């Protein structure tokens, strides 16, 4: 945990003297990549962050959207990759805790969580299996204890995550606009640290996360205590209702150093504090340890002396410790004392604003021919391949995961996990739909189109519930940014996301950059994870059971785009081929058409085509409803292609809509009006999932068998062998 020589020189120049040891610790924490975004910040500015519903306030760690009638929704996404790779249970659990406190900091109640989990190949790699199992348990134990439902997410396995773990957690908050904390402070206000005691866990965590993972630094991993977090949530919300909080920030990466310097910098104030006043877990902690400890479940509150007694009463009620550690000054300095002596006194502007870098980038060599198309041997029967895909860890049902998460608590969950996107009811009669999506396989082949694809897929998922996308969260996860080739993939992904966000007028309301995701085995594939929040003004699509005789319409063209597909990579072990690309105008037309179909209330369900392509999407409808379906491949919208390309290509902007036959004419009429590419491709019935080409079956699979395989495969992989 140290500054680079160049940074040390810069620090000396800025403060005009040698830094004290405490100052060095504080600055090293705050100037770490994790806290400062020094490699990425310059570039992130291109993302559109404003929109008609976006509320911008200083010092917020989460995005705020106005959802009408005096209510707001807050959202944020964070990752906890390095800690989870070393200690998956604690790493994942504290990842949940951290993002929840970001939501709480705005003065809103956390109402939902989503988690994106990525690991190595669990079929072969016992360590990956151990990481997966324990990360799921970590998320479950933390969220369940708090009573915040985990309503969705994604799980993916890829060899690029061998010996590593990606744990992304998104949190959603809800509250009244009038209760938002308007961060402010005046001279003499008190700085209070409340929550768990500061201990020796998570020391140097942010620097640990700002380097590649080479050793198992367990002391850098924080220890979770969801019970304390639950008490903090209730105490803070009670203090908020009593208007006792002037400003608030959670303690995350960099601990006190970051929270104090960033709060002071955002509010244009100074803070004088005394480490002796911090309540600690151990009596003999060094002041530097106190300043950089990343012990969890702590909040920094600014209030005044008149409100302090009431605030302390609330903390007493919940039996939470709180200490007045300092006060607000006007000199814009972070002044830290111990035993009455100054141990750090440094301008907050210097601490909180590391010099931003402009790193070189270069198109990676591996990309030169990667998108050359490749054809695979054509078969007369793909049933066996289909069954293999349904059992594959990336496509198999994730019920083993979300069945361990309380997804009902809070009684808002209208559409439960297991569908395209989950839906929450809000107090103003509206509904919120949320989904997070990533696709490292496609992002590796084409960082720009892959990232756009993740964004569009998340949009498709919320559109399938009847929601209009109103905000986006981006989580950009890459390897070492000092490698120009890796940095190029970061920039390409970012540019792609920016283009899509601007064209679709979906503001980026929050995000995170996580770099140095690599082990001695190498860097991860580019892994942007995109969260999309959609709003439903009237009613969400109430998914109904599909019966024999119901019909299936497909919207959107299937293209020759097998690159990065599960078919290429899982079945043929081939990395490469043409990456699916999003045609913006087609995408928009299709989204609008699906939203209008849902509004008519003439359809039973809408489902997007993604992983595993059309074949898997149709199978999912059959397996969930236990009904067969016959789909002639000759009828699929798009150019004429080989059977495997139609079945397994993961082209974007495609939807499957189901409905009662009597509504066929109405729906077709409506789609014609929207001028979208579509076709009625099948009818439900029978007991098998069938795809035909020239009237001959190319897939014929019993629904029952398919369903059992799909539902049980992941659990069996985890529990056995």
């Amino acid at each position, binding site marked *: 945990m140290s500054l680079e020589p160049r940074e040390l020189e810069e620090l000396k120049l800025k403060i005009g003297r040698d830094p004290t040891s405490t100052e060095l610790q504080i600055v090293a924490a705050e100037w770490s990549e994790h806290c400062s975004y020094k490699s990425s910040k310059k570039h992130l500015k291109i993302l559109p962050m404003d929109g008609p519903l976006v509320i911008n306030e200083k010092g917020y760690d989460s995005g705020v959207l106005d959802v009408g009638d005096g209510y707001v929704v807050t959202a944020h996404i964070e990752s906890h990759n390095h800690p989870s790779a070393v200690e998956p249970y604690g790493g994942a659990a504290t990842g949940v805790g951290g993002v929840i406190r970001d939501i709480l900091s705005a003065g809103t109640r956390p109402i939902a969580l989503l988690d994106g989990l990525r690991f190595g190949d669990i079929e072969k790699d016992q360590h990956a299996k151990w990481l997966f199992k324990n990360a799921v348990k970590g998320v479950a134990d933390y969220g369940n204890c708090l009573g915040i439902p985990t309503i969705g997410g994604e799980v993916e396995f890829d060899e690029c995550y061998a010996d590593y773990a990606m744990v992304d957690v998104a949190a959603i908050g809800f509250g009244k606009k009038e209760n938002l904390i308007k961060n402010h402070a005046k001279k003499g206000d008190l700085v209070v640290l409340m929550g768990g005691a500061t201990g020796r866990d998570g020391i140097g965590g942010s620097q640990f996360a700002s380097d590649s993972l080479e050793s198992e630094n367990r002391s850098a991993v924080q220890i979770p205590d969801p019970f304390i977090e639950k008490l903090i949530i209730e105490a803070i919300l009670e203090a908020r209702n009593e208007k006792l909080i002037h400003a608030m920030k959670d303690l995350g990466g960099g601990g006190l150093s970051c929270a104090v310097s960033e709060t002071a910098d955002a509010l244009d104030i100074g803070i004088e504090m005394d480490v002796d006043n911090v309540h600690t877990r151990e009596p003999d902690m060094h002041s530097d340890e106190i300043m950089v400890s990343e012990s969890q479940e702590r909040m920094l509150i600014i209030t005044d002396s008149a409100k302090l007694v009431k605030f302390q009463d609330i903390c007493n009620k*919940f039996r939470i410790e709180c200490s007045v550690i300092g006060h607000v000054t006007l000199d814009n300095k972070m002044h830290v004392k111990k035993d009455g002596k100054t141990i750090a006194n440094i301008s907050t502007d210097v601490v909180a604003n590391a010099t931003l870098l402009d790193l070189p980038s270069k198109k990676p060599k591996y990309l030169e021919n990667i998108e050359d198309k490749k054809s695979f041997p054509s078969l007369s029967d793909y049933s066996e391949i289909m069954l293999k895909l349904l059992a594959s860890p990336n496509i198999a049902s994730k019920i083993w995961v979300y069945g361990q998460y309380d997804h009902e608590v809070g009684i808002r969950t209208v559409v439960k996990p297991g569908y395209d996107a989950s839906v929450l009811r809000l107090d103003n009669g509206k509904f919120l739909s949320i989904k997070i999506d990533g696709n490292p396989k496609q992002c590796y082949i084409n960082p720009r189109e892959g990232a756009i694809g993740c964004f569009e897929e998340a949009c498709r998922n919320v559109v399938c519930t009847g929601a209009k996308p109103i905000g986006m969260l981006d989580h950009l996860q890459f390897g070492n940014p000092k490698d120009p080739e890796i940095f190029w993939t970061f920039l390409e992904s970012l540019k792609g996301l920016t283009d899509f966000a601007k064209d679709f007028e979906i503001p980026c309301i929050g995000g995170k950059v996580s770099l140095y995701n690599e082990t001695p085995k190498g860097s991860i594939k580019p892994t942007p994870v995109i969260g999309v929040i959609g709003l439903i003004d009237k009613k969400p699509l109430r998914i109904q059971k599909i019966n024999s005789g119901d019909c299936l319409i497909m919207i959107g063209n299937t293209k020759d785009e097998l690159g990065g597909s599960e078919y290429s990579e899982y079945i043929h072990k081939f990395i490469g081929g043409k990456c699916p690309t999003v045609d913006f105008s087609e995408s928009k037309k299709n989204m609008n058409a699906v939203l209008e179909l849902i509004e008519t209330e003439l359809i039973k369900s809408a489902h997007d085509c993604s992983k595993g392509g059309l074949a898997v999407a149709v199978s999912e409808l059959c397996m969930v409803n236990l009904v067969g379906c016959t789909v002639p491949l000759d009828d699929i919208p798009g150019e004429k292609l080989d059977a495997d390309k139609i079945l397994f290509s993961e082209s974007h902007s495609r939807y499957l809509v189901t409905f009662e036959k009597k509504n066929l004419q109405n729906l077709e009429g409506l789609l014609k009006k929207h001028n979208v590419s579509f076709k009625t491709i099948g009818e439900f019935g029978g007991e098998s999932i069938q795809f035909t080409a020239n009237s001959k079956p190319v897939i014929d699979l019993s629904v029952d068998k398919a369903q059992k395989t799909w539902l049980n495969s992941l659990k069996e992989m985890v529990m056995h062998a």
Partner: protein
Amino acid sequence: MNVGVVVFPGSNCDRDMFHVLSDVFHMTPQYCWHDKPLPENLDAVVLPGGFSYGDRLRAGVIAAHSPIIQDVKKIAEKGIPILGVCNGFQILVESGLLPGVLLKNDSLNFMCEWTNLTVENNKTPFTNKFELNEKIPIPIANGDGRYFVDDETLKELERKNQIVFKYDQVVNGSSNQIAGVCNEDGNVVGMMPHPERAAESEINPHDNKPSSLIFESLLKKIGANN
């Protein structure tokens, strides 16, 4: 109709229960903080779910020693209806108000899923509007939900008609598929599944009427008392 909703540090279904009691069934609930005396004149008491004291030591055991439980015991003796849901059930068991124990699910995992109950006793204040053997689609969400009693006690429970709800299939390995029981007098009922998560059609993908009957039974009982 005054219903006390007891809140412990770590309770997390208290607000859900409050909403259902007040907004759906138009009762007058009030939160009762664990270290304060229980208010006078309550018509019923609910112990909602959650993780009181973070499930430390054992689910429900610390809460069972809270000051308010002494008051709950007193009014239980008076015959006032008391319902414990999930962690509330665990607390009632740990405090001795109900027989048996709740152990880790046989999957060893937290389980959140929809189950089907059958009503085994329709004489309690929370089941008086059901037919015997009526089905209730309802979600569970727990890690320690496996109700266990020894064979002798099980026979006793059956003989005294203390088994209130059973799962219609094996869910977590509980004795005789028991999901809820009552005391000998029948006024104290504990159940692992969450009726407050199933009483509104908007959030119940199956049928919200059966779970609603749990609350309507209470209304009927209190109405008859007053």
